[in-house]
């Protein structure tokens, strides 16, 4: 009798298991077969608020409008944090599951998932007649394919507070053009009892920006940076790392805010509009927000980053398409995802984005006539500079996180010298090579073949 019971329980367990397997398999095949762009449930991991304040509200509004126009499409927007943008996706992607649409920063953070087989080329789903209007697509090309959709242009202008300049006896209409001018202005501002330059670097992003804005200036091209990443050039060469001394000098001379090492990067971005520092560099979105507080062009000035280096990139600007959206490999609705991303580039949505954030959409169809504010016009001109490079895009995400961010922290906290920072970079480059042989191979291939 007991044996019969055991057999019955085992039989029932097997039957339930088989039924569950069959149901799952059937539902999967049904889902795969039904990639209807107008009938899908999508999860979108979105990031943009830190670059473009107002972006989170904008995406929610556009999703609601899209769902209204496509009643059978449901889009679940999950906003992402800056600190974990790369790590959260990398972690979830290793299980071959996660969102249908993900957001990453341009180039390496976007191409690395592509090389790992976690995303599909967006150019396979969106016609060239559409993508030709998108700006900055070159940042996300690999193997002749486009892997992501740019959303907005992100320029980092240098900004100064005109009232503070006046107080320090400086010409408020003129921002520093060279590093020598910048240091001279900083000296006068400090003498006037003001904090010359503000940023936050508890999380390392302040230092990473310093690398991207100042560090690139001794290079002639991005190719030189790529060569250093794969060991074909020595990163310890002062050409690459001389900027650490410039950062250390700012700290030593007391030109940085005293809490630079203990406040976060987003807190640091707020210092300028809080009138706590006289100079800074901020995103286009933050510059727009600051203009509202400081009284527009009367209260603040914007301009290019002061020239520090002697390379060809010294006078380049820093526009990047910053964050972009791509479709994941495991999405069961790539067509639906692509259709929604194309919607985000429709004329009205582009206008809505600019109205909500003050940041320019990465699309040639965005009418420049909408930009009427004198400061914003200046920013748009800068964003469309002939040469624009954001070097951080070309640093492997692991090296960016473990070396680029941490090395700057050593300097701003005063706990390490420029030599220590360089040593850290070299150690992390070597670790990346040994821990990610596949990524290293793909990167090297990309460097040589594009």
């Amino acid at each position, binding site marked *: 009798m*007991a044996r019969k019971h*055991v057999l019955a329980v085992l039989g029932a367990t097997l039957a339930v298991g088989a039924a569950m397997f069959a149901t799952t398999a059937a539902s999967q095949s049904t889902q795969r077969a039904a990639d209807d762009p107008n009938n899908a449930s999508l999860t979108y991991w979105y990031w943009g608020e830190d670059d473009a304040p107002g972006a989170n509200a904008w995406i929610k509004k556009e999703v609601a409008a899209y769902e209204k126009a496509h009643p059978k499409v449901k889009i679940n927007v999950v906003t992402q944090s800056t*600190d*974990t943008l*790369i*790590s*959260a996706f*990398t*972690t979830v992607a*290793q299980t071959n599951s996660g969102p249908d649409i993900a957001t990453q920063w341009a180039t390496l953070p976007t191409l690395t998932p592509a090389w*790992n*087989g976690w995303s599909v080329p967006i150019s396979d789903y969106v016609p060239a007649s559409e993508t030709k209007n998108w700006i900055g697509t070159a940042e996300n090309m690999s193997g002749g394919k486009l892997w992501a959709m740019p959303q907005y242009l992100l320029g980092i202008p240098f900004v100064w507070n005109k009232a503070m300049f006046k107080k320090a006896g400086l010409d408020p209409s003129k921002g520093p053009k060279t590093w020598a001018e910048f240091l001279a202005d900083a000296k006068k501002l400090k003498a006037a009892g003001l904090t010359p330059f503000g940023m936050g670097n*508890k*999380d*390392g992003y302040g230092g990473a920006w310093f690398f991207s804005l100042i560090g690139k200036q001794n290079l002639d091209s991005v190719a030189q940076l790529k060569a250093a990443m794969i060991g074909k050039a020595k990163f310890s060469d002062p050409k690459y790392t001389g900027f650490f001394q410039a950062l250390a000098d700012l700290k030593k001379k007391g030109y940085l805010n*005293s*809490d*630079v*090492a*203990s*406040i976060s990067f987003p807190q640091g971005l707020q210092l300028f509009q809080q009138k706590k520092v006289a100079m800074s560099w901020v995103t286009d979105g933050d510059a727009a927000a600051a203009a509202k507080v400081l009284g527009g062009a009367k209260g603040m000035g914007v301009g290019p980053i002061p020239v520090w280096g002697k390379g060809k990139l010294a006078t380049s600007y820093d526009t990047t398409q910053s964050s972009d959206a791509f479709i994941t490999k495991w999405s069961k609705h790539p067509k639906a995802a692509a259709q929604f991303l194309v919607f985000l580039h429709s004329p009205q949505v582009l206008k809505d984005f600019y109205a909500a954030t003050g940041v320019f959409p990465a699309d040639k169809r965005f009418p420049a006539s909408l930009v009427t504010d004198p400061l914003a016009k200046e920013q748009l001109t800068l964003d469309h500079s002939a040469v624009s490079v954001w070097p951080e895009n070309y640093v492997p*995400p*692991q090296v960016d*996180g*473990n070396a680029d961010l*941490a*090395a700057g*922290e*050593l300097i*701003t*906290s*005063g*706990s*390490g010298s420029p030599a220590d920072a360089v040593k*850290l970079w070299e*150690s992390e480059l070597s*670790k990346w090579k*040994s*821990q*990610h*042989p*596949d*990524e290293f191979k793909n990167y090297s291939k990309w460097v040589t073949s594009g």
Partner: protein
Amino acid sequence: MAVASEPPRRRQRRRRELWPYVYVLPAFGAMAFAFGFPLVQVVRESFYAGSFAAPVWVGLDNYKGVLDDAEFRTSLLNNVKLLLAVPVMLGLGLAIALVLNDRIRGMRQYQAIVFLPYVLPATAIGIAFSFLLQQNGVLNTFLRKLHLSFFAQDWLGNSHLAIVSVGGLVVWQQLGFGVVVFTAALLSLPPETAEAARIDGAGWWSLQFRVLVPQIRPIVELLTVIQVITVLSWVFNYVYVLTSGGPGYSSSVMELYIWRSFSSGANGTAASVAVMLLGMAAVLIGLSLWVRRRAEASA
């Protein structure tokens, strides 16, 4: 033929003996799936580099790489430094428990106040303290107003102080747990011993440290082991939220090192450190079991 010749009673007994194992089997299977499988996977993964999809066999290279890595050594050293928080936690906890044990007025309220931080989420506390401890945060502003500028330090931005700040936060939160455990232990002691000591003329200090504390010694030992394990492998939240391991890696700990490695896709490296941490925790858990057994035996 052999089965047929076996007496039916013996067969029945054997079946009865086997039944408990059948009942245990599902739980055993679940445990093996939930704990055994991941454990084996982590150990296996520690010998590979690259992604899960394209693992590359590297033997002991992950372990060698980790031991050669200055960042790992700093993380390990920080875990050791945080161990210094354990005697502080226990000493303060015991002192407060002894005072409260004197049935002072408002004892329950004091107990609740001391215990409150323990029930607050570590993440929320970490965020609050990350604002309080900034260079121009609430603590330093307060100190400067009291003309104690010398004490106003960059608690999070100074590489020497960041780990001290983490330790301070751990003590602040875990203190309540120690107080509650010690108070419970003291309240469970037979009052006759203390009464007898008082009649014999023992002063307050003698009563506490010669009569009461020796009686709760097994609890002190047990709590010591528990807090050591906590400090070794449960401090990720505090470090991540308060300092993210910085400046540089000056306040990193082993858990953060594992997380950082795994989240950048260096699975093999993360696995090798996880195996090392598991080994250390296993030793401490063994010690904890030994202490507990001793405590039970002496009870």
